């Protein structure tokens, strides 16, 4: 029986030999530049060739659809319907103006429900919030099943290409990446623990920085992340806070690849906990126990203390509090903006054509997510360092947070929303509905004895200007409506 198995044995040996050689040499080619901090340019070449393949695939699908005389499903990035963005006040006045009421006193009209009705149905067809919590739809297909909407139109050639892509991704890229990631994390843990034994001083700080940067470089290569950093002159400096929009936990690796930051977070158990505890031995990160997270004063105190010490690295915070799908920026929590130091905003924008980086935590666990990341083609993103900002005179934390958010949104080409990212899991607060009800009841009852801000609840921003004898008050509410109320001055006084 031995002679029967011999050829297979040989074959097996040969296959194993080849795969080990290929694997080891690719590891070397990737790890050595990472350790030294140089880049050969393999990843960019890879990216360009992939793009060409994707374009070809889309053209084939369109041709296939045309032959069968069917429609290709195309996503529309600007929504399904054209929404009217006028305010409640304006629309109700329009309703009244085109009506046939003889009395000049605004009263209830049965048609008033149409305003709310139309708004309601519009939000059912297309709303600004729920679509931010699922992966973005792509214009062209990138040979991943997970982003394909036109499965019927795939020809034989495309299927072969897809199969080849699948093979490459899972049997070559995935094991390579997992090995790299493991070595990167392993190195981080071991080396930071060793450096932790060196007494505090310039040597320790210097070594710690080098080790962190090296490990993050290896991790970046393990994800095949192709990152472009813009405006590096604005890179965060010691004694400041760096804020960025949050799409995925990988954001941390992407930013830490280019500079040293102090991380803030809750301490976990398991593997992540081990990494966290090792990291804090060589450089001062801020980890909180689970019980301490709720105590806002404690959090603020620790952050302030860290920021006051100019030898410590800038703190990295994601004020949205949750992962958003990189098409918009949602409400920033005001905690980090109350501390009163310089804020360095950073905008991160991922290119979804190569692999969608968004972590849909309600759909995928962490391990599942990492597997998906490592079996995509690549993670391509751009990072913009924005000029530092500080809180101005007369600005409170919320206004400052909104200003920073607007800057990040403009730079990254994202939609600036006032909605809370917590709506991913939680219900919206009733106060918003009550604001709408207050607005409408103001229309019904002309004379409002109390002052405008009192009537309307929490106003974020209020500007008053005059048109003749009319006092116009423009108020930005804490939902995405800016309303203007023109009131006759003599009536309010």
């Amino acid at each position: 029986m031995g002679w029967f198995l011999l050829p297979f044995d040989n074959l097996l040996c040969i296959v194993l030999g080849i795969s080990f050689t290929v694997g080891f040499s690719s590891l070397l080619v990737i790890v050595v530049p990472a350790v030294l901090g140089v880049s050969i340019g393999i990843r960019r070449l890879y990216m360009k060739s992939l793009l060409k393949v994707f374009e070809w695939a889309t053209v084939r699908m369109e041709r296939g659809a045309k032959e069968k005389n069917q429609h290709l499903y195309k996503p529309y990035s600007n929504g399904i319907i054209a929404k009217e963005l006028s305010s409640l006040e304006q629309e109700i006045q329009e309703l009244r103006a085109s009506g046939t009421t003889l009395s000049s006193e605004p009263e209830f009209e049965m048609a008033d429900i149409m305003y709310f009705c139309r708004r309601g149905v519009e939000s059912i067809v297309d709303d600004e919030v729920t679509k931010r919590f699922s992966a973005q739809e792509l214009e062209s297909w990138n040979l991943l099943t997970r982003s394909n909407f036109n499965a019927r139109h795939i020809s034989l050639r495309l299927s072969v290409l897809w199969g080849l892509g699948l093979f490459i991704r899972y049997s070559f890229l995935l094991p390579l990446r997992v090995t790299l990631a493991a070595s990167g994390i392993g190195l981080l843990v071991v080396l930071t623990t060793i450096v932790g034994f060196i007494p505090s001083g310039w040597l320790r700080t210097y070594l710690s920085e080098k080790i962190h940067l090296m490990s993050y470089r290896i991790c970046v290569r393990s994800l095949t992340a192709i990152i472009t950093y813009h405006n590096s002159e604005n890179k965060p400096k010691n004694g400041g806070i760096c804020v960025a929009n949050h799409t995925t936990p990988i954001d941390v690796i992407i930013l830490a690849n280019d500079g040293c930051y102090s991380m803030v977070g809750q301490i976990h158990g398991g593997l992540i906990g081990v990494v966290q505890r090792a990291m804090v031995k060589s450089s001062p990160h801020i980890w909180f126990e689970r019980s301490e997270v709720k105590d806002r004063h404690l959090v603020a105190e620790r952050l302030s203390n860290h920021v006051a010490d100019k030898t410590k690295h800038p703190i990295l915070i994601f004020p949205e509090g949750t992962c958003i799908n990189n098409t918009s920026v949602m409400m920033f929590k005001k905690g980090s903006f109350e501390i009163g130091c310089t804020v360095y905003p950073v905008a991160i924008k991922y290119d979804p054509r190569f692999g969608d980086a968004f972590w849909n935590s309600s759909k995928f666990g962490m391990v599942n997510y990492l597997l998906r990341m490592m079996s995509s083609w690549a993670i391509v993103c751009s990072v913009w360092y924005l000029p530092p900002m500080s809180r101005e005179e007369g600005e409170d934390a919320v206004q400052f947070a909104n200003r920073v958010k607007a800057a990040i949104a403009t730079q990254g080409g994202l939609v600036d929303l006032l909605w809370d990212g917590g709506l991913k899991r939680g219900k919206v607060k009733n106060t918003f509905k009550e604001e709408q009800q207050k607005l409408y009841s103001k229309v019904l009852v002309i004379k409002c004895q109390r002052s405008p801000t009192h009537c309307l609840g929490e106003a974020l921003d209020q500007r008053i200007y005059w048109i003749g004898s009319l006092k116009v008050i423009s108020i930005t509410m804490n939902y995405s409506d800016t309303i203007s109320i023109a009131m006759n001055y003599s009536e309010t006084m």
Partner: protein
Amino acid sequence: MGSRASTLLREEEIEEIKKETGFSHSQITRLYSRFTSLDKGENGTLSREDFQRIPELAINPLGDRIINAFFPEGEDQVNFRGFMRTLAHFRPIEDNEKNKDPIASEPLNSRSNKLLFAFRLYDLDRDDKISRDELLQVLRMMVGVNISDEQLGSIADRTIQEADQNGDNSISFNEFIKVGNFLIFCIFGNMNYYLT
């Protein structure tokens, strides 16, 4: 996930919905993708909770009534056909839509169907009359706690007085058409779609 969008909706179904509602092919596939993204339970139907997960709808004072309009009598789930049928009320009226079939029923987005939709928002018990209580309920939903019971009551009384013609102290559909400027419903009952 959107990947099921064009695979689960068969061509025949699309044609039927097209005939019934007047939406175009691409509008129907796009709205089906929206339907599946709202359907968290992934069972092909939407429940009231699925609608309430939309924050902009949850803060709408008439949100619950609008959600109600999607569900047929006494049912708790709405399928894609029902969803489209209700949305069809909000298509713009096309005056040059010539019905080739004279026996065919009125299109869902006709003037009277739009008005009937609005009437049903008030008439919760479907007895074809808007009673004083039903009117008060809707008023209360729209103003919240900002207007007193007496004031609200007098607004309701005044509205019924103006509209009521046969003296039964409630508003029937015919009286409703006359008092509400029905042009408003037609202008405001339209949603303009980006794609055709």
